[in-house]
């Protein structure tokens, strides 16, 4: 089964992760612009970060046969540094139309401050102007209220719910997210977000319409195989294959494909220029091969020789 991980911060991950993801069937992933764990204190470092995710990281993924897309935006934490935020907002339009940019994101609330609110709204305006989908990061704290507020503001700003992916949902937020017409993302991330056994229960309850599974893997203790392991567990638990295909592949493609920047042909039949340059020597068509789930680095650990 082909898989898409629509939320993966690969800039923080190793080549072992890329290898493991490719072996598990991940054909494409989306790297949202986010907080690096360490606040940026210069606009320039933020600009170079955006350049990295539209350029270098896209190339790096291609070396492993994985198609890389990204979202650009000012995250909620750094929205609280007004000087930085103003500078980033000036540069964002230049990045929003880069190749492979599939949304404005991840944006939204962290502590639900007035500055977070201000820049969330400004970025929703930008997404509307450029007809780009929006990836909304919902807060870890005061989550339920923050999730509702995020959707209230989207509607207030006139953004169509079908263009918005509300991410990091859980059992408490999913009903409202779906009922209001949004895409509901779930991050399979140990300890702080969703577990995959819980995810399987939700799939049994809600089916696969507008639900999207991602790993949100980043610099913290997280699992780049979040999508692959959820797909496997769901199939083993009797969730219909069609539902699994939707939540681990098709829905992400439909939601972010609205940008016009992400198409199935990109991995099934890429244009010659991309084959010659970006994806040189990499065949993505691993058709028929059984996806193989092993821990990143497992093969490495078993190899004593480094040549």
């Amino acid at each position, binding site marked *: 089964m082909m898989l898409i991980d629509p939320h993966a911060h690969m800039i923080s991950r190793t080549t072992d992760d890329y290898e493991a993801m490719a072996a598990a069937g991940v054909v494409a992933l989306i790297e949202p612009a986010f907080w690096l764990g360490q606040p940026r204190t210069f606009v320039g470092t933020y600009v170079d970060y955006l*350049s990295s995710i*539209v350029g270098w990281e896209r*190339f790096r993924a291609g070396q492993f046969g994985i198609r890389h897309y990204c979202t650009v935006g000012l995250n909620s934490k750094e929205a609280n540094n007004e000087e930085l935020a103003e500078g980033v907002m000036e540069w964002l339009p*230049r990045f929003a139309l*880069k*190749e492979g940019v599939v949304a404005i994101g991840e944006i939204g609330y962290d502590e639900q401050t007035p500055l977070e609110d201000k820049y969330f709204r400004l970025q929703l305006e930008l997404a509307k102007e450029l007809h780009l989908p929006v990836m909304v990061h919902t807060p870890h704290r005061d989550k339920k209220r923050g999730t509702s507020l995020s959707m209230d503001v989207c509607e207030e700003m006139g953004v169509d719910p079908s263009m918005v992916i509300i991410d990091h949902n859980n059992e408490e937020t999913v009903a409202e997210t779906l009922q209001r017409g949004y895409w509901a993302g779930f991050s399979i991330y140990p300890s702080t977000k969703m577990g995959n056994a819980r995810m399987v229960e939700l799939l049994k309850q809600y089916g696969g319409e507008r639900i999207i599974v991602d790993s949100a893997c980043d610099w913290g203790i997280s699992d780049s195989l979040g999508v692959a392991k959820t797909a496997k567990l769901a199939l083993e638990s009797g969730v219909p294959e069609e539902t699994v295909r939707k939540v681990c592949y098709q829905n992400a493609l439909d939601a972010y494909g609205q940008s016009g920047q992400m198409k199935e042909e990109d991995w099934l039949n890429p*244009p010659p*220029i991309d084959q010659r340059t970006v994806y040189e020597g990499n065949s993505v068509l691993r058709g028929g091969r059984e996806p193989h789930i092993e821990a990143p680095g497992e093969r490495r650990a078993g190899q004593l020789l480094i040549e």
Partner: protein
Amino acid sequence: MSQTPVELLRRWVLEQVGDEAAWVAQSLETIEKGGSERDLHIFLGLAPRRLGKADLVLTDEDLAEADAAHPGWSPAGWSIDGAARVLALLSCAKNRPFAERFKDLRRTADMAELIALYRGLPLYPEPETLHFEVGEGLRSNIKAVFEAISHQNPYPRDHFDEHRWNHMILKALFVGSRLSPIIGLKERANPELARILVDFAQERWAAGRPLADEHWISVGPFRNDPAIKATLETAIAEGKLTEEALQ
């Protein structure tokens, strides 16, 4: 009289973009007349979206015209959006130093933009002002960006000093990039490069790693240079190197 590169690019792009020809022509006119930098950014951003990324279709005649317009220039393997981007850059009003505008675009470029920007190198005005920009591209870890400069591009032959030339060849070998598409490989061979390549060969042999036959193209002409002669003879005697490779 032969056409200029701008005229050729304009003809090819307008012929091959179907219904978008009017949009391209209109955008170029705005850019030529000194429209804002934003107009340029929007055109560059929309080019692949509106024109697609198919290969530019060029006949042998077109390629001959390209070579006549600028010796060594080969647009073979250019994409339509890439050609349109270079065309836009060449059409810009001369209201800003070229290298400054190039830098501004390069700093925020995505991969396809970088490739297009650097493929256009031989055609840009004020080529001597672009050395820093070219250096940034050569240092890229993205092989296709490096090759946009090194392959099928006469700019290095025409404008690199010996140090930069030599390091481009070394990097090509190091990252597994082909040497034969480099224009000027024979003309720019030099004793210093031959010496470095022989040193590098010794490192590879010591590590038990293979060497491409292309490694020796720039060494052959200087095989009798006293700095490397003995090393090469020993390598041949030990079976690490063949006479043919040095031809």
